[in-house]
């Protein structure tokens, strides 16, 4: 790999990312999959970096999953999205920050559609007004939350308590980065680094001390792909896609995976258990899996947050070996305790993959 070649390309795919005053919208599914990621993002921005970031309980789904599954028509989706923009307008913000990759892609697609078809925009404004009495402005800036962390990565590094370095060997951790398809594959210019060699997560890994693994199936789908999974009969295809990625990255012996999509960390995490059950195959060392983390979780680790406050206990793949490599302390007894110290109960351990 020729790093200079990638740098030349990355230079062509820079995007404007505002450095403050964000209107933040959460993801439908991330709060269930990795429930502490979004609170961690808000904690980092508000408490560590003193940024103004606003969210409203009146925000709803963007209907992206329904749209991409051919259940919700585009006109309906556009009107739902217009309502989200109205909430932003009413709150006095112009910088729209989406937690979900599919939402980000959908917002990008809709704004681009409105540019080319102003009559559609006029129709959506009319529908929204009729249905809710609301009006809206199109965001001055549309970013994904990972864009913001990318923008602030050096400030996070300046406050870091840990680096992505193996404390036993002193070498950078080998990190696989996986970008959600809807981040830049639809509109390469709207993603940091473009679609083929995205830089948004690479930039974080570099600054936080890790080493990026460029493996052959880096671009391949994580296995979610909506239809692969939503149609129950297709789930074998979903697992097959995930397995293809793990087979490809295995020779590089990655220490961890970092992702910026709701579905990707979930499938890269949970399907390792399924693959182990189906074929007895594991990809981490010593019968373990490879931890798949969100970028907020990784940022939280770097900043020295308690791993259990980051929700790492809800991962299928045990994170303790990774924490040990970095040198992050943790209380094993507190892993399955709730925020108020209540016992949440220890889950049953799988037989085919070691989870500490």
């Amino acid at each position, binding site marked *: *790999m*020729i790093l200079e*070649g*990638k740098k*030349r*390309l990355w230079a062509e795919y820079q995007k404007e990312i505002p450095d403050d005053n964000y209107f933040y919208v959460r993801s439908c599914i991330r709060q269930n999959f990795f429930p502490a990621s979004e609170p961690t993002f808000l904690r980092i921005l508000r408490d560590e970096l003193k940024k103004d970031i606003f969210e409203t309980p009146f925000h709803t789904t963007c209907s992206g999953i329904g749209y991409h599954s051919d259940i919700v028509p585009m006109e309906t989706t556009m009107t739902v999205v217009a309502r989200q923009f109205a909430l932003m307008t009413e709150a006095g913000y112009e910088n729209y920050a989406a937690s979900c990759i599919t939402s980000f892609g959908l917002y990008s697609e809709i704004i681009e559609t409105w540019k080319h078809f102003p009559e559609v925009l006029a129709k959506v404004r009319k529908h929204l007004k009729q249905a809710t009495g609301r009006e809206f402005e199109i965001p001055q800036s549309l970013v994904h939350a990972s864009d913001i962390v990318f923008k602030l990565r050096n400030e996070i590094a300046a406050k870091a308590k840990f680096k992505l370095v193996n404390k036993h060997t002193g070498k950078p951790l080998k990190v696989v980065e996986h970008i959600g398809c809807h981040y830049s594959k639809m509109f390469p210019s709207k993603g940091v680094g*473009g*679609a*083929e*060699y995205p830089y948004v997560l690479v930039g974080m890994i570099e600054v936080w001390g890790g080493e990026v693994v*460029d*493996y*052959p*199936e*880096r*671009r391949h789908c994580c296995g979610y792909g909506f239809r692969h999974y939503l149609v129950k009969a297709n789930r074998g295809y979903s697992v097959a896609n995930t397995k293809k990625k793990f087979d490809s990255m295995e*020779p*590089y012996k990655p220490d961890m995976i970092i992702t910026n999509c709701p579905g990707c960390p979930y499938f890269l995490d949970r399907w390792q258990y399924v693959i182990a059950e189906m074929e007895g195959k594991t990809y981490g060392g010593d019968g373990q899996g490879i931890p798949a983390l969100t970028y907020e979780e990784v940022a939280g680790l770097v900043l020295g947050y308690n791993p259990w406050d980051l929700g790492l206990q809800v991962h299928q793949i045990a994170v303790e070996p990774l924490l040990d490599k970095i040198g992050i302390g943790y209380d094993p007894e507190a892993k399955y305790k709730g925020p108020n110290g209540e016992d949440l109960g220890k889950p049953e351990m799988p037989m085919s993959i070691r989870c500490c």
Partner: protein
Amino acid sequence: MKKIAIIGAGVAGLEAGHVLARKGHNVILIEQKNTTGGNVRNWDRLFPNQREASEVYQPLIQQAVNDKLRILTDTVVMSAKYEKNTHRLTLSNGETLNVDAVLISSGFRVFDAHRKEEYGYGIYHDVITSADLEKIMAVNQKVRTTKGKEPKRVAFVHCVGSRDEKVGNTYCSKVCCVTAVKQAIEIKQLYPDAEVFCLYMDLRMYDRYFEDLYREAQEKYGVTFIRGRLSEVAESFDDRLQIKTEDTLRGKPLKFNVDMLVLMTGMEPTSLAELLATEFNIHRGDDGFFTPEDEHVNFNISRREGVFLAGTCKGPKNIAETIADARSAAETIINYLK
């Protein structure tokens, strides 16, 4: 004696200059680059017979010397004005020329393969272009991977930057298919045990001997032709290139490793085309190439009085077509100046 400025001293410009000089006209060649001869100077051997490219371009250059043509290299036309049957050209060297006719033969540039990001040119070692391969063979007469090894598996990718809406070039570059076949044969001649693949959309073997060459590549040299476009390239764990394509004849996706990937880059209008079109007020098509007044009959005449067109500035052509077009343009100018 009339004065004629020829913009571009490649194959078309040199040949037209020669014909015009023989008729006693005063010819000035204005070349953007520091050498004459055009793109063919970067080629080692030519299709369909592997003739050395220098056998074609050296005589063209020599005849310009023999004709004592004035040649301005590293020079471009910055502006052009037309008044009283005279074209007044301001050049980048500060000189001003008043000429009776202008021939634009600004040629083409090779498609920049960096734009096909998924193919990894400039990102992965041993992804090269057809133009790179010609340069390598011209210097070494042998081909090695970045690690200095003989390539055991080589794949040629057709239509890179041609017939591709994604990069904005919907046209066929015409010569890439036969160049790929020629280069595939050359690799087999160098390394008979190597496995060589051509990934194509459809093979446009349009001219005499081309089809024979294609058959020879299969029957004599064992080159494997796969009908399918390349989707992406990545570096494998052993530093080879993993490529993904589809064999559309068998309806099967394919993934395999190669030691070298050659991208058959097509033709594009030169960077000068936009400036020249503006200054001379002449038409360009959606593809950016110049459009003559009449594409069937008056194919060397632009819509601007006294401005003529020749060669690949009007679209992809091979060398023989370019030379024929240049001679036609010269004859058209001679008749115009009578």
